[in-house]
């Protein structure tokens, strides 16, 4: 139980970091790429989600618990 909550808490922290730092990521060349974040830093990135997942697994991490998001260009409006 505690382990589950801890995983969720770490994921939340990485998500918050991503959303707060999205402009910084754009300025650093991550636009239109998938970025995996762990402990408030990018640990893998790439144009293809498959490559990002492979890179995460190569680091002995489970992608199911890792925050991965796509960096859209600034100002893109997505209507659901």
């Amino acid at each position: 139980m505690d382990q589950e909550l801890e995983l969720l808490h770490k994921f939340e922290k990485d998500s918050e970091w991503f959303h707060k730092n999205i402009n910084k990521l754009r300025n650093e060349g991550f636009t239109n790429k998938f970025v995996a974040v762990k402990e408030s830093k990018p640990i893998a990135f790439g144009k293809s989600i498959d490559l990002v997942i492979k890179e995460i697994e190569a680091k002995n991490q489970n992608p199911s618990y890792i925050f991965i998001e796509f960096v859209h260009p600034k100002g893109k409006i997505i209507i659901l």
Partner: protein
Amino acid sequence: MKQIPLEVCHYDDNLRIIARFLLRCNDPKIFAIIEAIVDTGSPITIIGPRDVKRIRFSPLQRERLEGRNKPINIGGSQMFTKILNNAKLKFGELEIEMPVDVPIKGEEKAIQPRLLGVDFMLKTKAKLFFDPTNKKAHFEIEE
């Protein structure tokens, strides 16, 4: 009365309500953390193509699920889905069993969002409180 806290943030520069939960299932075996946009315009809850890849949900496993046989239009794209009927969504201490749609086709770009739909609110009899000005939101669920 139970409260499920939600986050309000600029998700790709668009102000959204975000929910994070554990998704689990025994058959097929799934255990993953999902971040979804709370979407009162969506009748269904759906995970995204990148989640399918993150949790290694194979095409063979997805083919065995119950089919919807109709395309779903989401964020300007079209996807075909199947239904994971016995999915369990866990928010803190609260765990709900409900169907979740899983993409099987049309996910090549893998950038479509995941949505927590009105089906979740109906299942839990939840009320959504959303204050975009102060960036606050939560679900309220009567026990």
